[in-house]
């Protein structure tokens, strides 16, 4: 299973990672290696086997919709890299 540089670029865009040319080449090689190893599980016959997404048999968990105290605006904004007038500031979108 070889992952081409083009595929690396596509996945990097999906993952919102800007990669240098060197990184693209390195990841193309390393991801191919890892997937060649991990891909071996495809050979296993899993017909009729249910997938497990979670080790515990938990279904939906519900609770009452009650009002509770939450973080203050000041606390919620305390770690924002850019803020103005009590809001988070981001680059211009439109």
């Amino acid at each position: 299973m070889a992952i081409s540089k083009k595929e690396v670029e596509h996945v990097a865009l999906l993952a919102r990672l800007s990669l240098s040319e060197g990184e693209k080449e390195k990841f193309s090689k390393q991801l191919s290696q890892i997937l060649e190893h991990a891909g071996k599980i495809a050979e296993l016959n899993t017909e009729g086997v249910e997938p497990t997404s979670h080790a515990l048999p938990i279904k939906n968990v519900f609770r009452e919709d009650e009002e509770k105290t939450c973080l203050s605006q000041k606390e919620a904004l305390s770690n924002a890299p850019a803020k103005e007038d009590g809001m988070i500031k981001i680059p211009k979108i439109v």
Partner: protein
Amino acid sequence: MLHKLTVHELHKKLKNREISAMELCRDVFKRIEAVESKVKAYLNLTEETALSAANAVDEKIKLGEEVSFLTGIPAAIKDNMCTKGVETTCASKILKNFVPVYSSTAVEKLFNEDIVMIGKTNMDEFAMGSSTENSAFGPTLNPWNLKTVPGGSSGGSAAAVAADETIFALGSDTGGSIRQPASLCGVVGMKPTYGLVSRYGLVAFASSLDQIGPITKDVTDCALVLNAICGKDPMDSTSLDAKIPNYTKALVSDVKGLKIGVPKEFMGEGIDPKVKRLTEDALELFEKMGAIIEEISLPHVGQALSAYYLIAPAEASSNLARFDGVRYGYRTKQKVEDMVDMYSKTRAEGFGNEVKRRIMLGTYALSTGYYEAYYGQAQKVRTLIINDFNKAFEKYDVLVSPTSPTVAFKLGEKFEDPLKMYMSDICTIPVNLAGIPGISIPCGLADGLPVGLQIMGKTLDETTILRAAYAFEQEFGFKEKPIL
């Protein structure tokens, strides 16, 4: 020399007023001053708050207030657990200067017991790694041999305990991140049953696998810390609403008739012969103590590493999407064209190599056209592995194996070869996939470096693995300490 003692030994001294919490705290910081420059276990030391916490404990003791087992005991916290008002970085540039506005439940529970937090420990960035070399702030070194790694990802916590730079520590374990460093540093580390300890405030890596647990100097301390941190938490819907025993009741030195299964898959290829020999010696000792030992097979466990390296990165790629330079954490200083450009540059600058690699791997495994073949198939393999364990536990009380296939390896030895590094967790990963509890305890030294024994138990049967571990510890008597 108070720093050399255990939680239960110090508790007695505090309770009998032989020592004060302040004396103890100062003693630990003196030890840190002496050895931390060699070990580099901590990312952040909180001496000032520690001293005032110790002072408050002494006031309470003076007033005759009740003293819990952990009251006044110095503790170190892995830096992926949120601590209110204290920087929490996950050893990542992207979270440098991040100061949480709340504490994780496990840490809060320790604070409720009046522990004295010493600082936050180093780790592989976002808990991704097996050597602590992936920390953005430089590696931690193994106290037993400063040229070797302490294991990972909770390498800072394990090294701090081994070097007596704390009395105990908390770690987190997604594929072996408590047990493998505990093994490499010659201390005790437990990954409890998935859901026994709340994950609220633990920065998520792979949510279906992550679990917080104790790293301690002995099995008694492990039980004491576990008592304090477990329990249902309304803030973590995956935490278990289970009847929780007093784990110190499990500390009985008796394994007569205990049925131990030894999975042959964990004793074969890839296991260092010296590690294998010490594991066999340990099993012989168990047999002498009256346990029944039998070889068994977990036929699908050989696929666990592959399944894990599809499932964990897939979950990570989704969990780490939150680091976007908007609400918290680092944001790129470069000029950006639009939001996607801002996200991409922020993440490229903020994340280290291994984290990027796993985000890429996970995104690929979840992308259109590959989802069924990789992620879907890995989840089915997970079911097969769980079935293997269930079948084994029909007949056996616990399973025993080496914790790590090798002793501590040299710094840089596996750094550039991700697949080789991933192999460090072949014995620990299946336990996370199955959600069952596992403990690592020291079972000897090979070439002067510690070897760990892994004891795995049924879901929520921490009691039996603690009993087996305690019995072994009493009989074996591992007394060696690293010389720093």
